[in-house]
């Protein structure tokens, strides 16, 4: 195991092919990291959506319950 490159400049230069090597590594890095973050955030954003969804659901249930309740009481009054 020996380091292939002697100097940091060599490492960046890649024997004259630095542009191509680093471009493709950059694409891969951005692509893979971007997708990783995106798929990780997906759960979080879905959870937020679901919180809203459940709030609506419980609101509606409560409204329905209230509605039924007032109906019941009106029947009693009659």
């Amino acid at each position, binding site marked *: *195991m*020996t*380091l*292939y*490159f002697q100097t940091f400049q060599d*490492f960046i230069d*890649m*024997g*004259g*092919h*630095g542009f*191509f*090597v680093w*471009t*493709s*590594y950059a*694409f*891969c890095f951005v*692509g*893979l990291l971007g*997708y*990783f973050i995106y*798929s*990780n955030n*997906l*759960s979080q954003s*879905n*959870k937020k*959506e*679901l*919180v809203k*969804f*459940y709030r609506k659901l*419980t609101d509606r249930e409560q409204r329905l319950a209230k509605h039924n309740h007032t109906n019941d009481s009106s029947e009693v009054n009659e």
Partner: protein
Amino acid sequence: MWTWFYQLASPKWFYQFSTRLLPWFRWITGLLFLLGLALGLLFSQVDYQQGNTVRILYIHVPAAFMGMFAYVVMAITGAIGFVWRIKMAHIVSVSCASVGALFTLLALITGAVWGKPTWGTYWIWDARLTSFLILFFLYLGFMALHNAFDDKKTADRAAAVLAIVGLVNIPIIHFSVEWWNTLHQGATISKFEKPSMDADMLAALLVMLAAYQFYFLTALMQRVRAEILVREKLSGWVQKLVTGNNS
């Protein structure tokens, strides 16, 4: 064995199980990538013909392999879901599509960038690049078809049929593209042949392949978890998990 299989088919169990597993997978992926990059960029020798451009292959070859692999996983899980009507299989199948498309796209981009110093042009109608372009179209078709349906169950089943049809077609497409390529370009371009592999190059490639494999599993798991949340929103455990109470 079978109980394990049944458990795996339950979204709730998978979600809870993957919650424990996910941090491990992330760490392993990260470490493998670091090791692979160190081996590939710093320690490996270069091919005397290709020079340092050979280092692109450490990220290109695994991406290409995983692009194919993800399609096979997508089609097989789709078929399992289609035949035995297993919800989890469909979720995995659908989640594979975008990861696989990403791998295929990366394989195309890195292949093209590799081609510039090697062939003197970014794009060449090389058999392998062309096959991967078509594979990318197949992924696009799968995702578009799945998105087109309002009902997720219908979407799952239709997309599964498409994935299986695609799986049958991939070898045929690959064969015909290879044949077409040799017909039109003959032996003028044979530069994609494997460079003479030293042990350290092979090691770097294998570590990168493992890193991609774990990346695939991690990203897939994350997508599957997000998908489970949405699909199981009416079941009690998701509500409990999200809102933190059992109302």
